[in-house]
């Protein structure tokens, strides 16, 4: 079983975010990047599957500050191959990233591709379904639990409202991970340091990034104070009455 896990780095919200003078992007001067949390879950899920049924896990990422450390950490946890796409990704949206990953993954020929189901940076579609589209593979998102069964998997897909479906998918396939079966594990720093001395990060230059189909940001801004809030005063009963009145007035009741 060959598993590929494309991951991406997103802005770290521990640092304050500022908007650059163009007004359409984040100011990158102070921006610090961190692994997308759900991608970390995808890596954990891949390693759990490998521990359970054997196989080879390849973790792929576009280059960014901190990516090497993350890849080495993944290797210390059990990933076998580390691939870094190199090039100028500063303006790459998910469509571009999906295409770039697709090119490399085609060559790897994995049985299973795991991504985090979503990320908090760009909202132009998740990498997972885009990747599935470019590769012509089936996609199941919001997965929290995978059972391997020969040339197919049964994915536990979460729905809103606490519903879960078991979805059978033929391999190869792309799954968007909502949560690994166990929280991402801790790996002692001494182990990471050891791996840094032995593991190799393979570099794959990417020259043309093609972002067509993605969204174009018109304006990026901090939440703005609006003056539309109306505070209803009185006892809970009064407030409820007024609220019902308002709903009727607005035609929602």
């Amino acid at each position: 079983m060959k598993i590929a896990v494309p991951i991406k780095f997103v802005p770290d919200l521990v640092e304050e975010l500022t908007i650059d003078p163009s007004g359409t992007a984040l100011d990158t001067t102070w921006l610090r990047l961190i692994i997308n949390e759900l991608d970390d879950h995808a890596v954990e899920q891949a390693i759990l599957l490998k521990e359970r049924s054997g196989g080879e896990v390849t973790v792929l990422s576009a280059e960014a500050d901190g990516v090497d450390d993350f890849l080495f950490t993944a290797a210390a946890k059990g990933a076998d191959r580390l691939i870094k796409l190199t090039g100028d990704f500063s303006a790459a949206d998910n469509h571009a990233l999906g295409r770039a990953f697709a090119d490399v993954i085609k060559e790897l020929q994995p049985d299973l591709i795991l991504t985090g189901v979503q990320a908090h940076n760009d909202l132009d579609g998740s990498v997972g379904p885009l990747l599935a589209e470019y590769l012509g593979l089936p996609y199941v998102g919001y997965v929290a639990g995978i059972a391997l069964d020969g040339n197919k998997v049964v994915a536990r897909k979460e729905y809103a409202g606490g519903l879960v479906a078991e979805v059978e998918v033929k391999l190869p396939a792309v799954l968007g991970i909502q949560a690994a079966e166990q929280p991402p594990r801790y790996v002692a720093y001494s182990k990471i340091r050891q791996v840094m001395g032995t593991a190799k990060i393979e570099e794959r230059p990417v020259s043309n990034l093609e972002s067509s189909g993605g969204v174009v940001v018109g304006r990026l801004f901090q939440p703005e104070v609006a003056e539309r809030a109306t505070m209803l005063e009185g006892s809970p009963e009064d407030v409820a009455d007024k609220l019902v009145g308002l709903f009727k007035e607005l035609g929602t009741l």
Partner: protein
Amino acid sequence: MEITLSPLSPSVTKTFYTSLFDLQDGERVRTCLQCGTCSGICPFGYIMKFPPGKIIGAIRAEIFDHVLKTDSVWMCVSCNACASFCPSNIPITRVLMTRTKEEMILAGNVPSELQAALENTQRYGNPLGESPRKRADWTLGLQPEVNILGKTRQPVDVLWYVGDYASYHSRMQPATRALAKILNALGVNFGILGPEEYSDGDSQRLAGERGLFEMMAQKNGQVFRKYKFNQIITTDPHAYNALKNEYPALGVEYPVQHYTQFLFERIEQIKPLLKNEIKAKVAYHDPCYLGRVNGIFDEPRALLSAIPGVELVEMSHQRINSLCCGGGGGGMWLDGFQWEKAHTRLSEWRVREAVAVNTQILAVACPYEPPRFEDATKTIQAASQLKVREIAELLAESMDL
């Protein structure tokens, strides 16, 4: 107590046992008398499946793997009580308990709260997960401005290593500001590292993350070397312990004092400045890594006694026999885990002791303690009137700063 005689793994035991001998005084483990003193004095010994003496027993029985199968070592708060009272002088805390935790971490058996603190340390250089850029935010508004060495690049007499909780914790920041004011009032030429300061890493080390500790020591060492100063002082007994006893072996060696030592040396200069009376019975809590581990018992007491109106009283656990606040050795990041096992907190025992001697103020000298003890005064009804104050806060109040 279940010790099932499943297939023994003498090799696990042997590898672990011999690894202890590589540590300073590690071979002393061989001299254990199995007297049980350690397990008896340990504040959580009654809950551990394997308190220290029993771990040594398990090693001798070649069933150390049984120890690793339980999570009882995470009840150890590295308070050093066991080591201080062991009749055979075995460095139980530093060697046995810490190495056992290290094995747990290497095996990936880490409670999630602790994991978060360790990951935060790796990423942000502090266990709280705060932005390193905000490490000096506690200085905002202070006059004169605190000298941040990276900005001014001026040589100073004293480098103040502030530490994680003293820098970031909202309960500690007023105490940290109080100390800055005292240093200014005494005319001390001091500076801080601010955003360039990393966690001292000592509690992470005692929680079994040796590699992370070494990384922190290396990073701090690199920053220290950038600047000119004559000595280091620190707010945090854990940082003090690291700088004094652990960093030198890693090539980072500077004269270091805890702030209570530094102020005690200037007590004659301080005394005339102590104008305001603080009329209260005050009990002083000896922090493990100031008192028991490093023998600093008298300086903090002398500073408190110098404050007009203060009547110093002693609690039943004091000096070398002090009771840990529960924050050491990773305890700061195992609160939920330990609560689940014990349904009590050491900080709660401690505030009960303070109440038992009718004290109005529990004075402390470690930044882990005010938040821990203050939380405890909220859950222990008898302690609801008890005030928890840093020595620096009391001094500054009396000095009218």
